[in-house]
């Protein structure tokens, strides 16, 4: 039995932002797979919920005329995993989507909720970081678009201001065209688990077997998902050699802020960052038509 005081519903973005403006204490609920668990554990007693499930315009994935991929925040992980646009253009996001929970959870959990929940372990976050995703936030006052990296403020904290609703996640064509990717979720179980580490690597090759560009997104390597700028800068123009892999792995670790908890030690997490970044990069290169192993 949940301690729900009130349950409002909206069917359009305008309706939702108007309700949010009028009632700043509303908790937005979409799939409910995070909100209800928090309530089960005693957070958010006497909650007043605003369900946005009925807002059709926030559903699904669209390929815009300029090549931008626009993802509705209400898109479920099941839909994301099977969506033709995602599968054709950014299959790494389908790979990440399939790593989340189990089939029942993926049928209701949404990508917008996954991001707005603010967890460093969010299964879509590392990949969206690597894709340079941009978030559109709307309120009754207007709208703004920010890079996903600016949205994460700390553990469980995101830059969703009072009255705001996440209405789109977009990925620009220059951020995915020509790239191959690999997402590795490292967890103890193959389903229904939280990542010990999430590693998303995107890469683009250029003629002559050189790395044109590498982008690395990590989850659970710090209080929020993060990118690895030194490793990415180093990678540009490098040959695909064991030394390159070793250096990229080492540099990736330097960007992390892992800590020791009862779930895993800092030393182990850092070791995994190096190891799994190398593995993800090797797979991404192989998917780009480069040498799979060296």
């Amino acid at each position, binding site marked *: 039995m949940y301690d729900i005081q009130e349950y409002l519903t909206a069917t359009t973005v305008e309706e939702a932002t108007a309700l949010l403006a009028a009632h700043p204490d509303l908790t937005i609920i979409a799939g409910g797979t995070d909100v209800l668990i928090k309530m089960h554990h005693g957070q958010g007693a006497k909650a007043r919920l605003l369900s946005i499930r009925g807002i059709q315009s926030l559903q699904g994935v669209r390929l815009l005329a300029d090549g931008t991929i626009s993802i509705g925040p209400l898109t479920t992980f099941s839909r994301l995993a099977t969506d033709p646009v995602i599968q054709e253009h950014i299959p790494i996001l389908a790979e990440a989507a399939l790593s989340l929970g189990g089939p029942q959870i993926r049928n209701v959990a949404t990508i917008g909720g996954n991001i707005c929940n603010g967890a460093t372990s969010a299964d879509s976050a590392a990949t969206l970081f690597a894709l340079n995703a941009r978030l559109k936030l709307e309120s009754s006052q207007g709208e703004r678009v920010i890079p996903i990296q600016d949205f994460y403020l700390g553990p469980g904290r995101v830059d969703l201001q009072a009255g705001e609703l996440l209405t789109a996640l977009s990925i620009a064509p220059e951020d995915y065209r020509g790239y191959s990717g690999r997402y590795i979720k490292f967890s103890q*179980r193959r389903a229904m*688990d939280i990542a010990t580490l999430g590693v998303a690597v995107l890469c683009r090759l250029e003629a002559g077997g050189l790395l044109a560009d590498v982008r690395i997104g990590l989850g659970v390597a710090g209080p929020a998902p993060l990118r690895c700028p030194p490793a990415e800068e180093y990678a540009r123009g490098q040959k695909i050699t*064991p030394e390159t892999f070793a250096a990229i792995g080492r540099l990736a670790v330097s960007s992390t802020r892992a800590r020791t908890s009862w779930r895993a030690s800092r030393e182990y997490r850092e070791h995994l960052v190096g*190891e799994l970044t190398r593995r993800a990069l090797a797979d991404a290169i192989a998917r780009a038509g480069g040498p799979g*192993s060296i």
Partner: protein
Amino acid sequence: MSCTVGQSVTRVDAVAKVTGQAKYTGDFMFRDMLVGRLLRSPYAHAIIKNIDTSQARALPGVEAVLTYKDVPQHKFPTAGHPYALEPGHRDKADRTILTSKARFAGDAVAAVVASDELAAAEALRLIKVEYEVLEPLLTPAAAMREGAPLIHEDSPRNIISSKGYELGDLDAAFQEADYTFTDELETSIVQHCQLENHIACAYVDSDGRIVIITSTQIPHIVRRIVGQALGIPWGRVRVIKPCVGGGFGSKQDVCLEPLAAVMTLAVGGKPVRLELSREECMIDSRTRHAFKFHIKTGVTRDGRLTGMHIKAVSNNGAYASHGHSVAAACGSKFRVLYPMPALKYEPCTVYTNLPVAGAMRAYGSPQITFAVESHMDSIARRLKLDPIEFRRRNLVQTGYVDPIDGNVVRSCGLRECITRGKELIQWDTKKARYQNQTGSKRRGLGMACFSYGSGTFPAGQENAGARIVLNQDGSVQLQIGATEIGQGSDTVLAQMAAEVLGIPVDSVHVISTQDTDITPFDTGAYASRQTYISGMAVTKAAQEVRTKVLDVVREMTGIPVQALDIKDGDIVYRHSGEAVTSLAEVALHSYYDPVSARPITSDVSNNARVNAFVFGVTFAEVEVDLPTGKIAILELYNVHDSGRIINRRLAEGQVHGGVSMGLGYALSEQLLFDEQTGKPLNNNLLDYKLPTIMDVPDIGVDFVETLEPTGPFGCKSLGEPPTIPVAPAIRNAVLDATGVPLNKLPMNPQFVFEHFQAAGLIQEGGEA
């Protein structure tokens, strides 16, 4: 159609369960049913100085608030064991309903009865408790320390029991040995995680008796213990056990029922439901004892064991529950596997300020089998002996008599199990293939053996009851004291009754619900005793009905009984199979003959004074990812000697479940607690790594069907055993793959990584 035994007949409860018609405790609805909730101590060790319940009592919807001051304070035991007439053999009575001293973080210190869950939860928040916090004792070492505070006043150094045994002359055995080997091994605290959480519903009936509907393995024992806890005659308690969604030993204990009883008494007998959440269930039902073993073993040059010295420290948690008897069973059931000239077992069961450890599938045997079978492989490796050959030189033979309890090995298919396991996994071929591996992924093979009992004799009494009524159409009702908790006992017992009576199994109507007012006495579902022990009662009851039926036929026809048989519901000539009459005719006759009418029934009890050893093996092939410490199971086979298999499909189901429990034990499961405060860290199914179906490989199952002379139809136990040898087999496969002995459970990636790193197996920079 007879020959029901040995057939994979469909479960008698299959349709009810898949259509949702089966009624579990949570499906019992009563008008105006109230909700019970418990307030739990945030401290692992604390004395309650004061409790103020006034605000909670004043909350609308709250019908009662209870503390230790409001409920009987009779000390009672909770273990699901038969009552012992001799006081010295009784379980330790160290609990009261609601406590004035919290002994683990989560101990229940107050209870609320309210109109709904939200009111109950709000009332819990309004109870003000003032604690005097004591030092939490979280390890046996801390608890046994000189001068440590006492968790229970009457247990010096917090030791519950340290009763062991010594066989033969250990000093002489070690002198005779060419080598001695020592290992330290350790297991973790794990939890049953059965599908259905603990739940009970209680009310007072019109006769003033307390009725408790509860998810339990042991209804008759619950009746006794509720009587003891409340200080009322046991007959004033009626316990009803409907369908149960699993227990694994967690419900071979009395956890909720005395609380549910005092809750209904506090609200004038209105029905109250007390249901634990998963988070509560994981800390306030029972856990599996973590053990630390120190083993020293003498071995001759040719690989014969001369003697073994085992010291075992068991972390029992806050209350005794099954405590001492788990350590005792741990030391007794394994020892038949490798008889040796000398064996000394020194257990020590210790109170700590952690959740209560109790019975869990195989009751101490997974712990000691992990230790001994890991130790055996480490010895074989150091002696450069093949681990299977080393075991073969020491295996038990049929005819062996246990020198302490007198139990006899009357059937033993262990050698055949090993041979079959080797074939299934292609041991020799793969061993040769994996000899010189390089690279970051390494494969290996491992195996482990086990021995176990069928029931608890002679440590415990093995009484079982069954009752059969022959209906007017020749079908029967079968009523048994043994409890179906998902393991399939109703089905195999129906098969046995059908076999003896010569009727189709669908003519046996099993009354699945146990109700202490009307069900024959049986101590319940535990110790893998239902098929073997309760099966004896069922065959006895069926034989009595069969004899009575044939007597009626003799009266009807004049044909001597020895010339008759019952086949597929017909009475036939034994020599030719020619039909004489039908069972239905005989049944009608028995009900309505003008002169001799006496409906045929039987009502028997069977006190079995016998036990049967079961044996088996796990063979595992693993692939170890050195840089991440992940262990993947490539192939796994369990081969069991459980005597004759009554229902192969159900037996395979037991093995699948047991192996998956063993896999979690081996690789991922452990309950964790804050090392300073003792607060639970992962009492939920996200952070407690119970394997999912995606994590369990295809499990190969086979049986070596010996015929156990003491078992009904030659059967022996199977319920618990499949979980016993899994963890050491995997550990031994990792040893084979990497040369690294992992002597602690679980072998999760972080733990494995640390050991591989220490062994120099992980290169910085890695391979791409």
